[in-house]
C-alpha cells in the first residue's frame, strides 16, 4: 500500500477543512442543508414538487404523531383503567380508515404522480433534438474520469477537429446542452447537482440528457453510481462561460485540436456519429 497516498489525503483534508472552517463556521443550520445553487431552468419544478410533498407529508405525519403520542398519553393504563371493547369493524370504523387511505392517496400520491408525469413529459424527457442552437456534447465515462467531446467547427462528431477534454465540460450560458453518453467499463452516473440532473452511463447503451444554465461560473460534476474504490475521485468541472468567452474558447481549442490531434491515437477515437432518434 502506498503510504504517501494517505499522507497526501490527510494533508488535503486538513487544508480543506481549515478552509471550510473559516468560510462556513458562521453558517446557520438552514443555510447549511440547502441544496446547492440551481443554475437550470427546470430545477425549480423538482423543488416545487419536493416542497409540496414535504408539506402534505408533514400534515399526515403530524396526525400520526398526534395519534401516537396523544393516545399514549390519554389512554395509558394509569389514566385509562378500562379499555374500550371494540374490534374496529363497524361501518363507521371502516369508513374512517378507508377515508384516511383515500385521503393520503388523493392528497399526495395522485398529485405527485400527475405533476411528475407532466414535468417529465414536458421538460425532462422533452429533448431539444431539433433545436439548431443546442450545444451537443458526447460523454464517455470511465474508471475514474469523464471524457467530453465537442464536435468542433464541422459539426460532425468523431472527426479530426473534435475538441476532446478530460474532466472539464465547457458550455455557453443560457444555451441548452444535449448530452449523449456511454461508459467504457462499468456503470457510472452523470450527476450535475446544480442542474438537478442525473443519469446512468451504461456500457453498451447510449443515455441522453439535456440541461441548460443561467449563470456563469464553475460547478462540479460527480459520479453518483458506485464504480469502484475510487468512485469518490470521479469528479469533473463544468465551466459555464458567457457567449464571447465560449466562442474564444471554441476557436482556440479548435485550432489546437487541428494542430495537435493525433488522428491515429485510439484515445481520441472513442466518439460516435450523433445518434438522432
Amino acid at each position: 500500500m502506498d503510504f504517501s497516498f494517505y499522507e497526501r489525503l490527510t494533508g488535503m483534508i486538513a487544508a480543506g477543512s481549515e478552509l471550510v472552517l473559516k468560510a462556513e463556521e458562521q453558517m446557520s443550520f438552514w443555510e447549511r442543508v440547502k441544496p446547492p445553487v440551481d443554475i437550470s431552468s427546470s430545477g425549480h419544478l423538482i423543488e416545487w414538487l419536493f416542497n409540496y410533498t414535504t408539506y402534505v407529508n408533514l400534515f399526515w405525519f403530524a396526525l400520526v404523531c398526534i395519534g401516537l403520542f396523544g393516545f399514549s398519553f390519554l389512554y395509558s393504563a394509569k389514566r385509562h383503567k378500562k379499555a374500550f371493547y371494540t374490534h374496529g369493524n363497524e361501518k363507521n370504523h371502516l369508513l374512517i380508515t378507508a377515508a384516511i387511505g383515500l385521503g393520503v392517496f388523493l392528497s399526495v400520491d395522485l398529485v405527485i404522480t400527475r405533476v411528475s408525469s407532466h414535468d417529465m413529459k414536458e421538460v425532462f424527457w422533452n429533448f431539444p433534438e431539433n433545436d439548431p442552437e443546442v450545444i451537443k456534447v458526447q460523454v464517455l465515462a470511465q474508471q475514474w474520469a469523464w471524457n467530453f467531446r465537442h464536435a468542433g467547427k464541422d459539426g460532425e462528431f468523431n472527426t479530426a477537429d473534435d475538441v476532446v477534454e478530460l474532466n472539464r465540460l465547457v458550455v455557453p450560458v443560457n444555451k441548452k446542452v444535449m448530452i449523449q453518453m456511454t461508459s467504457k467499463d462499468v456503470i457510472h452516473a452523470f450527476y450535475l447537482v446544480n442542474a438537478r440532473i442525473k443519469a446512468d452511463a451504461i456500457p453498451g447503451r447510449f443515455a441522453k440528457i439535456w440541461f441548460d444554465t443561467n449563470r456563469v461560473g464553475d460547478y462540479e460534476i460527480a459520479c453518483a453510481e458506485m464504480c469502484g474504490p475510487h468512485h469518490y475521485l470521479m469528479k469533473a468541472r463544468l465551466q459555464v462561460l458567457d457567449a464571447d468567452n465560449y466562442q474564444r474558447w471554441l476557436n482556440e481549442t479548435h485550432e489546437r485540436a487541428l494542430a495537435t490531434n493525433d488522428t491515429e491515437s485510439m484515445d481520441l477515437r472513442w466518439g460516435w456519429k450523433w445518434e438522432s432518434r
Partner: protein
Amino acid sequence: MAFVEQHIHDAPTSFWSKYVVSYDHKVIAKQFLWYALFWGLVGGLMSILIRWTLAYPGVPVPLIGNMLFPASGGVVPPDTYAMLFTLHGTIMIFFFITPLLIGCFGNYCIPLMIGARDMIFPTLNMLSFWFAMASGLVLFASLCIPLGGAAGGWTSYPTLSTNIGQPGAGQTMWLISLFLFGISSTMGAVNYITTVITLRAPGMGYFKMPLTIWGLWLTAILNAIFVPVLGAGLLLLTFDRVFGTTFFLAGAAATSGRGDPILFQHVFWIFGHPEVYILILPAWGIVSDLLSFFARKPAFGYKMTALSLSAITVLSTVVYGHHMYTTQMSPLLTQSFMTLTMLISIPSAIFFANWLGTIWKGSIQFHSPMLFSLGVVFVFGLGGLTGLYLASTSIDLYLHDTYFVVGHFHYTMAASVLLGGFAGVYFWMPKMFGRMMNETLAKWHFWLTMIGINGIFMGMMIVGYGGMHRRLYNPFIYEFLHKLIPINNFISYSAFFAAAAQILFIYNLFKTVFAKNYPAAGKNPWGVGTLEWEIDSPAPHYNFKDIPVVKCGPHEFGNPNLTTGRDYQYQTEELVKV
C-alpha cells in the same frame, strides 16, 4: 383444513441431536437467533468503521485500526471502504435481519401460535439452518482472502461485479454464499407456507391467526417466489465471472460477444423490491399483535389489516422498476412503475390507521415490547412517507443515489425492522428461555436506541437533501459538500451512540439466558391469550400435549362480560358474547 397426524416424539438426549442437528423448530429458532446476533455484531462493526471514515477521513481507526489495516497505518483504505459498505448491506439484510425475523421468529412462532407440534418438514427445517451456516462460512472466508471480500455494492451491479471491476475471488464467493443462502431461505419458505396451510389447529381459520403469523406467512410466500429469481441472477453472474460467458458484459471488455448489464438490474430488483417487504412484513405482523396485546384491546380492524398486508404483498411484486429510473427505461415503463408504487400508499395508510385505532381508548401498558412497537409506528411513519419523494420520477432525478435514499431505506428496513425485532425478542424471551429480560435495562435500551437511530437516519436524509451522493470514501473532495461536514459528523456521533446503546441489550440478553438462579417467568407473564401462552415456559419439546381447539380470535381483550377475573380470553375459550 387437511388433517395431519402429529405424533409426540421422544426428546433427543445427546448434545449433538439436541443442540446441533436438531429437528425441533424451537431449537432451530434459537440457532438462528445466535447466528443473527453474531452477524449483527459484524455488520454493526462495519457500519462503525464506515461512519468513522466519513467523520474522520484519513485518520487511523482507534484501537482496532492497526490490527485490521496495518498496511495503511490504521486508516481504512478506499478499496476496503467499498468492501465495508458492500458487506454491511449484505450482512445486515441476509445474515442479520432475515435470520432474526424469519429464521428465529418464523420458526419459533409459527408452530406455537397456530397450535402445531412442529413444522411440517422438520428435516427441511434443519437443512435450512445448516445451509445458512454454510453460506455464512463462505462469506466469512471471503473476508480472509487476498483482495478481500466483494466490493461492488450489495446490489452488485455488473459490470462492476464482473471480472473487470472485481478481479478477486471475493465477489465469486459472495455470489456462492448468497446462492446458498437462497437455498436456505427457499427451504424455510416452503416449510412455513405448508405448515400454516396444513397444521393450523382445529378451529384456527385464516382470520383467527395472529397477525404475526399473517406477516410471516406472506413473507414466506414472497420468499418462495422471488428468492429463486435472485438465484438465477446470481448464477448467471457467476457464469460470467468463472466460465467466461457474457450475459451481463458490455463495453470495452466485451470482446467475445456482449450482453446487457441492465438485464441484471431487472433480475435483481424483481427480487430486490419484494425483499424489502420480505424483511418488513414479519415486523409489521409482530407490531400489529403487540399493539393490541399491550393496549389490552382487540386489534382494530383486524381483517382490514390482514387484507392490507396481503394487498401490499401483491403490489410489492409489480413496482421494482422504481429502483431503476436513472437507467432511462422507456417512459411507459417508468410511469407505470411510478403509478403502481404510489398505489402502495392506500393499504399502508389503512393499516397505519388501524394501528392508531388499536391504541385509541386502550389501556396501554408501556412494557418494553410495547415501547419498541410504538417506536416502529414512529420510524415507519417517517420511512414510509419519505418513500413518496423517491417514487416520484422527477424528484428522483435529484435524490437518486443520494443519502436521502440511504436514510429512507434505513428508516424502513433497518430502524423499523430492528425495533420490531427487539420487540419480538423482549416479548417472546419468557417463552423461549423461560425468563423475563430486565425491564429497566430494556427501557433504557429503547430510549437510547431511539435517539441514536433517529439522529443517524434523519441526518442522512438531511445531507441527502443537501445533495450528498452515496458510497463516497471521502465526500469532501466535492466543494458543494463541504458545508455538510458538521452534519456528517453528527450522524457519525449518533451511530457511535446507537451502537453503544446495544451493549445494554447484549448484556441483558446474555444475563437472562445464561445467569444462574434467575427467576422463572411463569406460563403467561404478559397476560396474552394466543396459544403459545397456555403452555409451559420454556415451551416443552412437543409444544402441545393435546392439540388445542381454537374458538376465538387472537386479540380478545377487555370484553366487559368476562367473568374469569382476567381481562383477556385464551383462544381456546368460547367467545364471551357482549
